[in-house]
């Protein structure tokens, strides 16, 4: 059994007990525990069920590489699945539940899958569920979803907040182990600005557990000393609980800081995503121990040797009373020594290596009375929910059992793999080190920046240097080199000297025993989290999957949330073996950020709730809000769709607004319409290029409706242009078009016509603009008093500056509704007061505000097009019967040549017409009209579609516009629009102007 012991536990505060619960059971730990160490201290070996076979799984590792110990953390609005127990700090009141089990962790029905293992081989989804097709959706997928999968999805919105932080530095050091600290110091001594981040709450990494000395001091004391040194340097920023998640182009690095996952009661954001620009990056990310592939290596109680050591030294937790160490290297002996030192029994060290004479570590072990069997390994681990014994065999044999050793823990070590993830994210290459059986950074092929110079350096064990002595000198050199590359002069100091015990070479072991039969290989796990075994990878190779990337996807090796941190190298070595290829030939899969999963919320940062998106508000926004506005998003603006009165439906409100505007007086907040000033000696020439119309002939004081096309001829925007003076135009754009048209103008001025003397400025928000519309429009303005707005003083399509009701304003006599209409612009700071004045004065004339839907109905009744309804990026003005707005005199304008291309002049292009349903009802929006026959795909031919459709309260019937084949030549014809649910609508083709065809009303 695993248990807390009285000694060791350097990270614990034994004076502070902490209570937590696992699967509803109350447990106790200490401050400083991880959830993993606390579970083990409570003899909770079994922490979850595997993904596919629902096999019992226990904690394997002690850090970020843990594949099994994933739990559902928290409750309600703080629930989060897939949290790793090894990196979760214990706090009082923590609640966790194991995942992927049903009905319970101890008894899981899905475990029957393990009996069916031979029917669930690699690629089994592809093989089994392909036929018959319909069964996938209705039978197979629901079953697989029920039986597979890890954590549950949260049901409630996250209660916490998150944020970003932008930081800049000369040298960023990822990893706060001995290498990271030394590199940071060496860099910082040059004066460079340094950030050093460490994913755990503690500095020093593995070194304090593994021991040794640096410059004569025990390594843990040296760590304390260097941390206080760095703390005192003003040019160094140190962050614990901050993981270097990804390295990107141009020295961009994401750091993931967990601010209070260890103390949920604290105020403030939960996670902070550091968005860092660093001139140079040092990856001192350490190394990860590899499991050995033997049968039963997934039974709870089988752990990495380094993890057994960590739990003992850091947390005072023994993984078992009797431990068998199985290894191919000397490093695992440290675990045996630590156990022995703590008074725990090491039943045997099974060393797979066959070497002539004992290494110093072997000698030391034997000296301590520990049994060492060289050339031996594990044939099978016995046990179900925990280890009960190991069957010993010769490593070079086929697994014949030489003896059985009873034990309750197995500490395994297959060697170490440098953490090369961050080195690789931005293109750093790897090289195979056959002596140490590891991929390590290829120093000649580092990630390169904009100048072609390397911007990432690996240091210490992340660089493949596994002894303390090598790590120390490498880290010092890396820190100095990074500072130099960032433009600083490193201090000419000697590197500290590290000393640790000599180690004999490791010997790669990819399968234990080497000649294991199928039965054993099918129980030798490579990927714990995705349930991939040695036999699966061999099967994939047999079936022709030679590429490691293909094998990964076929077998799901390395595709789980741990991204194959433990399984990668063993998996590809197995593949290489099966293909009879060299490991470097097979290569690795691609390392992609983040290093370990980061919260989605940290990526979103502050963007949630009220500030999820910037909502743009006009000066009258609050009035609308207080007066029943039913909002419509238009770009990022919110515009009132209609103003609802007590008990009124939206459609009733729209109809009321339409009738009132036609009969009395409507007020529209038109502030969102774009307003762009174009000025300069070449302004008129520029305007003639931007618009299809002739704008240069427009007289100052006059307005003209204009169309804008892209260079491909398609209609992109429309609006009224006012000529302010000889050199100055004011262009109104659509609400959504203000920014894009401004950019469109700037682009042409900056890239094509850079020698034209024209300036443009977007002044949209300088003004609040109100459309005063209806038969009483003039009356209300005259009541407010001020400038002369009579028919003679201010004719249709004219503008004037003046004052109304004491407000300085510019009045445009333009109409988008067919009614007598003025659009009046005042400074935004006075717009609300002006609106209030209009509402008050308008009361006597039946004034009502109207929203965007009423605006749409009014314009549709008049047959005016709407950008985004009648246009969709494929429509040219000629399709819409707007030939009158396309100048034939101009030599050129944007879109002119495109519109002369054969497809654009094709008479078969659908053209705009009005549509009246025979029933008087409303056509469905976007409905297609069907014609005779079928097309090449056997579908009915279509001959047109509805672009706008409304109920017209004025005409008391449905009206619509649409684009129809030969439409203008087919007036009076009836065409059919099949709707949904079997209904077919019949509509007569008519002219697009439904109301006041002569345009009398706007001209009064």
């Amino acid at each position: 059994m695993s248990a807390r012991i009285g000694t060791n536990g350097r990270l614990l505060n034994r004076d502070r007990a902490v209570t937590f619960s696992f699967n509803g059971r109350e447990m106790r730990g200490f401050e400083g525990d991880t959830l993993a160490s606390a579970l083990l201290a409570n003899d909770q070996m079994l922490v979850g069920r595997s993904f596919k076979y629902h096999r019992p799984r226990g904690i394997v590792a002690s850090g970020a590489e843990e594949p099994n110990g994933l739990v559902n953390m928290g409750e309600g609005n703080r629930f989060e699945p897939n949290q790793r127990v090894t990196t979760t700090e214990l706090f009082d009141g923590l609640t966790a539940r194991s995942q992927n089990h049903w009905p319970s962790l101890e008894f899981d029905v899905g475990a029957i899958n393990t009996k069916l293992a031979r029917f669930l081989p690699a690629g089994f989804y592809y093989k089994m569920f392909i036929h018959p097709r319909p069964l996938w959706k209705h039978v197979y997928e629901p079953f697989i979803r029920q039986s597979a999968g890890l954590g549950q999805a949260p049901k409630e919105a996250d209660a916490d907040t998150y944020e970003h932080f932008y930081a800049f530095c000369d040298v960023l050091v990822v990893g706060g182990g001995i290498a990271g600290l030394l590199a940071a110091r060496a860099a910082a001594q040059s004066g460079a600005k340094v950030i050093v981040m460490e994913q755990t709450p503690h500095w020093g990494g593995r070194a304090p557990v593994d021991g040794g000395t640096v410059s004569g001091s025990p390594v843990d004391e040296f760590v304390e000393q260097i941390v206080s040194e760095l703390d005192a340097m003003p040019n160094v920023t140190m962050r614990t609980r901050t993981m270097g998640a990804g390295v990107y182009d141009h020295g961009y690095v994401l750091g993931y800081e967990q601010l209070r996952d260890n103390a949920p009661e604290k105020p403030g954001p939960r996670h902070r995503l550091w968005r860092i620009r660093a001139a140079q990056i040092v990856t001192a990310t350490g190394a990860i121990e590899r499991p050995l592939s033997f049968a039963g290596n997934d039974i709870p109680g089988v752990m990495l040797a380094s993890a057994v050591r960590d739990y003992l030294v850091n947390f005072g937790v023994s993984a078992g009373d009797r431990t068998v160490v199985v290894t191919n290297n000397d490093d695992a002996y440290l675990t045996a020594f630590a156990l022995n030192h703590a008074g725990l029994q090491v039943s045997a060290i099974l060393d797979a290596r066959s070497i002539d004479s004992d290494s110093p570590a072997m000698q030391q072990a034997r000296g301590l009375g520990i049994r060492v069997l060289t050339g031996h390994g594990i044939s099978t681990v016995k046990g179900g929910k925990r280890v009960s014994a190991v069957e010993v065999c010769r490593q070079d044999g086929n697994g014949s059992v030489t003896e059985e050793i009873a034990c309750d823990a197995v500490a395994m070590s297959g060697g170490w793999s440098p953490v090369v993830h961050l080195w690789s994210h931005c293109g750093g290459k790897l090289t195979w080190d056959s002596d140490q059986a590891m991929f390590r950074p290829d120093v000649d092929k580092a990630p390169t920046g904009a100048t072609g110079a390397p911007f990432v350096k690996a240091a210490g064990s992340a660089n493949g240097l596994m002894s303390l002595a090598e790590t120390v000198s490498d880290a010092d050199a890396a820190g100095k080199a990074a500072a130099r590359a960032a433009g600083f002069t490193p201090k000419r100091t000697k590197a500290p000297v590290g000393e640790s015990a000599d180690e004999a070479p490791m010997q790669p072991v990819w399968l234990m025993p080497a000649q294991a039969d199928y039965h054993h290989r099918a129980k030798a796990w490579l990927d714990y989290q995705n349930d991939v075994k040695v036999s699966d990878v061999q099967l994939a190779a047999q079936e022709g999957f030679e590429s490691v990337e293909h094998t990964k996807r076929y077998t799901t090796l390395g595709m789980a949330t741990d991204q194959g941190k433990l399984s990668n190298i063993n998996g590809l070595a197995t593949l290489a073996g099966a293909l009879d290829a060299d490991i470097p030939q097979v290569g690795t899969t691609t390392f992609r950020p983040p290093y370990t999963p980061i919260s989605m919320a940290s990526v979103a940062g502050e963007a949630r709730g009220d500030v999820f998106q910037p909502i743009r508000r006009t000066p009258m926004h609050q009035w609308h809000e207080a007066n029943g506005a039913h909002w419509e998003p238009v770009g990022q603006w919110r515009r009132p769709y209609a103003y609802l009165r007590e008990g009124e439906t939206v459609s009733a409100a729209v109809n009321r607004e339409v009738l009132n505007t036609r009969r009395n007086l409507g007020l529209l907040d038109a502030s969102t319409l774009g307003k762009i000033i174009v000025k300069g000696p070449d302004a008129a020439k520029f305007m003639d290029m931007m618009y299809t119309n002739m704008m240069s002939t427009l007289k100052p004081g006059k307005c003209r409706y204009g169309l804008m096309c892209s260079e491909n001829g398609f209609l992109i925007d429309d609006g009224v242009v006012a000529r302010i003076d000889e050199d100055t135009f004011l262009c109104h754009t659509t609400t959504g078009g203000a920014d894009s048209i401004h950019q469109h103008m700037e682009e042409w001025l900056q890239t094509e016509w850079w020698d034209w003397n024209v300036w443009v400025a977007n002044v949209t928000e300088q003004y609040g603009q109100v459309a005063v519309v209806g038969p009483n429009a003039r009356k209300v303005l005259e009541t407010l008093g001020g400038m002369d707005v009579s028919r003679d003083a201010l004719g249709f399509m004219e503008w004037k500056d003046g004052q109304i009701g004491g407000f300085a304003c510019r009045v445009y006599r333009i109409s988008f509704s067919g009614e007598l209409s003025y659009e009046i612009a005042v400074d935004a700071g006075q717009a609300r007061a002006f609106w209030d004045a209009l509402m008050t004065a308008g009361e006597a004339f039946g004034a009502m505000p109207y929203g965007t839907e009423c605006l749409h109905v009014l314009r549709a009744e008049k047959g005016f097009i709407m950008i985004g309804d009648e246009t969709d990026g494929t429509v040219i003005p000629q399709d819409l019967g707007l030939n009158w707005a396309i100048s034939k005199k101009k030599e050129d304008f944007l879109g002119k040549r495109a519109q002369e291309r054969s497809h654009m002049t094709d008479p078969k292009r659908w053209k705009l017409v009005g549509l009246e349903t025979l029933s008087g009802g409303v056509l469905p929006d976007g409905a297609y009209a069907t014609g005779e026959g079928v097309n090449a795909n056997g579908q009915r031919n279509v001959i047109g579609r509805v672009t706008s459709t409304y109920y017209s309260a004025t005409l008391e019937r449905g009206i619509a516009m649409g684009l129809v084949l030969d439409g203008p030549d087919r007036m009076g014809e009836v065409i059919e629009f099949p709707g949904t649910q079997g209904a077919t609508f019949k509509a007569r083709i008519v002219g697009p102007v439904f109301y006041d065809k002569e345009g009398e009303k706007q001209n009064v």
Partner: protein
Amino acid sequence: MSEPITALGGAVSQNGIAKVAEAAREGMITLRGDVTSAAVKKALKSVTGAAMPGAGQMATSGSYTLCWMSPDEVLVLCPADTVGDTLTALQNAAGTAHVLVVNVTDARASFTVAGPLAREVMAKLCPVDLAPGAFEPGMFRRTRLAQVAAAVWMPEAERFRIVCFRSQARYVFDVLCVAAQEGSAVGAFN
């Protein structure tokens, strides 16, 4: 004519790690023109008394401030009640030089973030090096603030001014308050 109002009527929040407040209305004029040309520089100097600042800088003289916006744009800050006169004076001083001078006072909203942690609040939202020494009073930066465009400068140590589009005033105020929330000190600039 009524008294002009700002977008948020002077909203203030001091619940967090820095004080966030809407600033008083200030006159703003955009001048587009070749700000490296002698004619434009002379016109600016004669009206405001300030010399045209270099890239990323601002220059103040009396109640006028010139802010470098781009090689062909300068933002002129002046008291709100002198905008009209300043606009006319700039136009006249430019003479025949090709410039566009336009009042943008009401097109903008303006905020201050103040306190010892003001730099940190801003560095949560703007991708700019705001460390002491890297950004100081006298510098002027057009940038992104969370999801919108903004210009920022420091009128004095421990105080930022932010200018954004008026329609986005509520968003900017709210997002500054989120960034300044209690318990969110970073400790990066200590």
